């Protein structure tokens, strides 16, 4: 039970990151290697805010830090799109390369300013305490992860189904050119999608601070790789496929780590990717570019 909940919890984390990646690729055709930077920026913004609020009680301190992390993530992602991606419209390779450069630069900058070591991030003690569920003692942070991801999934789905921009994005993922042929400026949708991805990634960064209790420069990159695997397994551009794949990956990782040996979990995820791609190159949901 603990394994399952932890697995789903990790899956929740991967989903948050993968959902943004999937939307960005589906709509814009950009493999966003800077997504890890969004995670890192959100995580560090949160830590930095908390470190400045030394005397404040833990809950407001935590919540404020988280909020700042989210806002910074969204703004950063939006700016990245406006300044770096938009000018390279239709030059897909260059767009991907720029995100690679940005990812590398951001991690380096963070190391430059705060060093390579992990820093502890204060969080309410309740996250470390456990709740008993079906006979197992489960740390509460898992619930935080799962609930957050569910909220995001529901919010995103509602956004896509009920709003005009959601409509534009859904259509754009299918056929970007035709959307412009209807008189719609897709570029605004691009910035929006990047900002959404940024918020989700920053949220993942904030939550990973809670789960790992520390923040470190490599966190964004290591989580990103798993998120990429999730996106490919689930099928690029499909939100439901991404959610399903995220849960599967999280579970596989946990179970393999426990039953086989630590570290084998990561390897099994990689093997899983290879397997899925060989059997179904279009990913679980069958949608692929």
């Amino acid at each position: 039970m603990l394994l399952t909940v932890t697995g789903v919890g990790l899956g929740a984390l991967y989903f948050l990151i993968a959902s943004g990646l999937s939307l960005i690729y589906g709509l814009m055709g950009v493999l966003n290697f800077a997504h890890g930077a969004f995670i890192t920026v959100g995580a560090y913004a949160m830590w930095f805010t908390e470190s400045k609020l030394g005397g404040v009680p833990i809950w407001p301190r935590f919540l404020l830090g988280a909020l700042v992390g989210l806002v910074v993530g969204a703004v950063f992602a939006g700016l990245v799109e406006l300044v770096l991606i938009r000018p390279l419209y239709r030059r897909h390779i260059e767009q991907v390369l720029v995100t690679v450069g940005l990812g590398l630069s951001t991690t380096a900058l963070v190391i430059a300013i705060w060093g390579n070591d992990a820093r502890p991030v204060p969080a309410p003690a309740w996250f470390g305490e456990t709740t008993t569920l079906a006979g197992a003692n489960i740390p509460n942070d898992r619930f935080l992860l799962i609930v957050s991801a569910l909220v995001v999934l529901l919010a995103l789905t509602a956004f896509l189904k009920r709003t005009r921009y959601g409509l534009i994005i859904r259509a754009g993922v299918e056929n970007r050119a035709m959307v412009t042929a209807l008189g719609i400026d897709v570029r605004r949708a691009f910035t929006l999608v990047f900002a959404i991805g940024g918020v989700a990634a920053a949220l993942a960064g904030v939550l990973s601070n809670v789960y790992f209790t520390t923040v470190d420069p490599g966190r964004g990159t290591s989580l990103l790789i798993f998120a990429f695997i999730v996106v490919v397994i689930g099928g690029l551009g499909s939100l439901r496929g991404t959610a399903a794949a995220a849960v599967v990956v999280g579970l596989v990782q946990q179970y393999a780590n426990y039953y086989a040996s630590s570290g084998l979990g990561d390897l099994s995820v990689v093997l899983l990717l290879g397997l899925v791609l060989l059997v179904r190159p279009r990913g679980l949901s069958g949608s692929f570019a």
Partner: protein
Amino acid sequence: MSGLLSVRDLHVHLGESHVLQGIEFDVPEGGVTALLGRNGVGKTTTLRALMGLVDRRGSIKLGGEEITATPTHRIVRRGVGYVPEDRDVFAGLTVDENLRLAERDGDPRYELVYDLFPELKERGRQLAGTLSGGQQQMVAIARALLNENRVLLVDEPTKGLAPLLVTQVADVLARVSELTTVLLVEQNLGVVQRVAREAVVLDTGRVVHIGPAKELLANEAMVHRMLGVGHAA
């Protein structure tokens, strides 16, 4: 004489081929101008160039204003409707959503659209991907009619449709041409005969004939030479 749409020295390169080699023609205001030619001469590319969907060089004027450097979505907002060759309806969206997406500022003309295509009202909540070819064509045309456009660019609307549907589409085109100027790419000469006023004929990236549609179609030798054999009437 220049018309609503005025094209001068239009060049388009796709990959290594020089697909349009200096196209020049006018689309007079009102009525249907047919863009004709054998397969592969560049008819669809011409429409896509007018829409800004491919990189182009030359001069394209809409109502006297130069739109050669204008991005697609702005061209459309100046009053250009597009019905693409493969319909390009959004399969994952419902019929309603497909139409809603096409709404621009102003009053969307749902009454007109549902009057022409009552089926679309019934099938509003149906996923566009599950529609038949003919029904998808209706959605594609309806989308372009929803707004008051100065000109409609329509690409082979009867392609792959059963004869009954072909007649229906021709009827719709005839009605529409009373409201808007239409530039129609069509292989079906019967439809052209029915609705078209002017004809522009392309051959390997160049314009080879411009004139009244009826005259061209009455001349069997010209039809055979420029449009090839095997066109259904």
